[in-house]
């Protein structure tokens, strides 16, 4: 296996769906603020995590537990408990971002394999060496701001594995440093594990279409039949300089399937699919399609038409290779 496919699971049934669809690894989180997909009804109890790991291992897959929010000063109990519960469940690795959580894991759970979350935004050899030398981090998830060439150069300068997002929702901001959701709602993926928390999202329809509001701010309006996106400020439409446009980023999903061979050549160990908040239908289709694409490249075959196969699942009905190609430069 040249490339490991790391797939999302928001619920135990999604974990089973991912494993059965061909995931090499599944990543998931506990049902609290310790992970960056802290949506109502989502995620795993400690007992469900134990059962999920058991199921994955029985089918030859690994489980990586995301504990990737930033711990609150003086109130680290939830993060400590998550680490202990991940180890108890037999997780193959934990995905962390916060320095204090990394330190606690390295000190009190030395047998846990540590991966550095994209939330840590480590994009230089110096930053990555710090995490590797200080805490024993074995893998770093690449921020979605680097080109394939930049990742190849980075891989040549570091001694740890790298993992790159290949499909799904696309943050245009540097992860872990975006405050847009905090600005509008007081809650963020970084601290509370949720971007645009749904209790602050409201939709209303009138004859002009559907308006999206985030804590009272109107952030977009879709005409009848127009494709929609997630209700985040970064994908909102605003008037600036007399022009209405998607000021930060269009509603669009990442799809870097055409770069799988380039990722392998760049020394990347694992490809990650975004979407722990998505349903089993998404998980099954995306994992099955990407497993076929990775296997085809491994076998020296031709690319699978991922874009066409998954066109019905993407945000805004559009796909992009994001910063990996950087043709806009």
């Amino acid at each position: 296996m040249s490339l490991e496919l790391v797939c999302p699971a928001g619920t135990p049934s999604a974990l089973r769906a991912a494993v059965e669809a061909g995931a090499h690894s599944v990543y998931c989180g506990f049902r609290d603020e310790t992970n960056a997909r802290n949506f109502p009804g989502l995620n795993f109890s400690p007992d469900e995590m134990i059962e999920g790991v058991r199921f994955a291992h029985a089918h030859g897959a690994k489980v990586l537990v995301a504990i990737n929010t930033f711990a609150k000063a003086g109130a680290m109990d939830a993060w400590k408990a998550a680490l202990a519960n991940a180890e108890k469940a037999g997780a193959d690795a934990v995905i962390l971002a916060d320095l204090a959580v990394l330190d606690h894991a390295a000190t009190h759970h030395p047998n846990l394999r540590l991966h550095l979350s994209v939330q840590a935004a480590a994009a230089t050899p110096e930053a990555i060496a710090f995490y590797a030398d200080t805490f024993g981090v074995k893998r770093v998830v690449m921020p979605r701001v680097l080109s394939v060439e930049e990742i190849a150069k980075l891989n040549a300068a570091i001694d740890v594995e790298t993992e790159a997002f290949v499909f799904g929702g696309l943050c245009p901001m540097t992860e872990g440093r975006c405050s847009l959701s905090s600005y509008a709602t007081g809650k963020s993926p970084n601290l509370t594990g949720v971007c645009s928390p749904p209790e602050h999202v409201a939709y209303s329809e009138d004859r002009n279409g559907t308006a999206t509001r985030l804590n009272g701010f109107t952030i977009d309006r879709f005409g009848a039949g127009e494709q929609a996106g997630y209700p985040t400020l970064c994908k909102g439409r605003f008037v600036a300089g007399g022009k209405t446009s998607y000021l930060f980023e269009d509603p669009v999903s990442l799809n870097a399937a055409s770069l799988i061979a380039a990722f392998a050549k760049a020394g990347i160990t694992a490809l990650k699919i975004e979407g722990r908040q998505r349903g089993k239908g998404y998980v099954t289709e995306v994992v099955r399609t990407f497993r076929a694409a990775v296997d085809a490249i491994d076998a020296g075959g031709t690319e699978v038409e991922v874009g066409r196969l998954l066109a019905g699942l993407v945000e805004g009905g559009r796909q992009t290779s994001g910063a990996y190609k950087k043709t806009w430069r």
Partner: protein
Amino acid sequence: MAEHFRGELPRLLRILAAPAGFLPLGPALTLAVRRFARRKPAVFDRLGEYGKCSFLIEPSDLDFSFLMVPDGVRSEVRCMRRRATQPADVTVRAPLLVLLGLLDGTLDGDAMFFNRAISVSGRTDSLVALRNAIEDAELTPADFVGATGGLGKLVDRSVIGGLGLARRFTGSPIPGEPS
């Protein structure tokens, strides 16, 4: 109001389905949900506080809708004519086949939202919680009629096969395909 979306039932089927609104669907569904709650209480634990919320489910191609409070063994489902619709914490509106696809996990809720196959108003957080709880429930048609064993498998195969055909026939969204 939501525009006509491909995948809605053909006019003839709508006319044929209209009398169903007068059947005791509410009590039957209430019994089915309560029976399911006794078998799989973890699904309702996942809903948490949102189990007390009221969900108005409006099939856009039928003349009746469902008001549900998914409160475990105290769950209630009411079926009502569209004109008699009551206020609810959250309303979700979509063609019947799309709603059924979301119920059994065949279709992805976010994708249906992106494609404008569903519309939502009211408390978005309660609908997100319900969607996630349903996703994990792995509901099958047999769960709704209380069928188990061989009969349950037969019910599942028949209904899922029938729904697949109906989706092809009506042009309803198919998993992974553009809408």
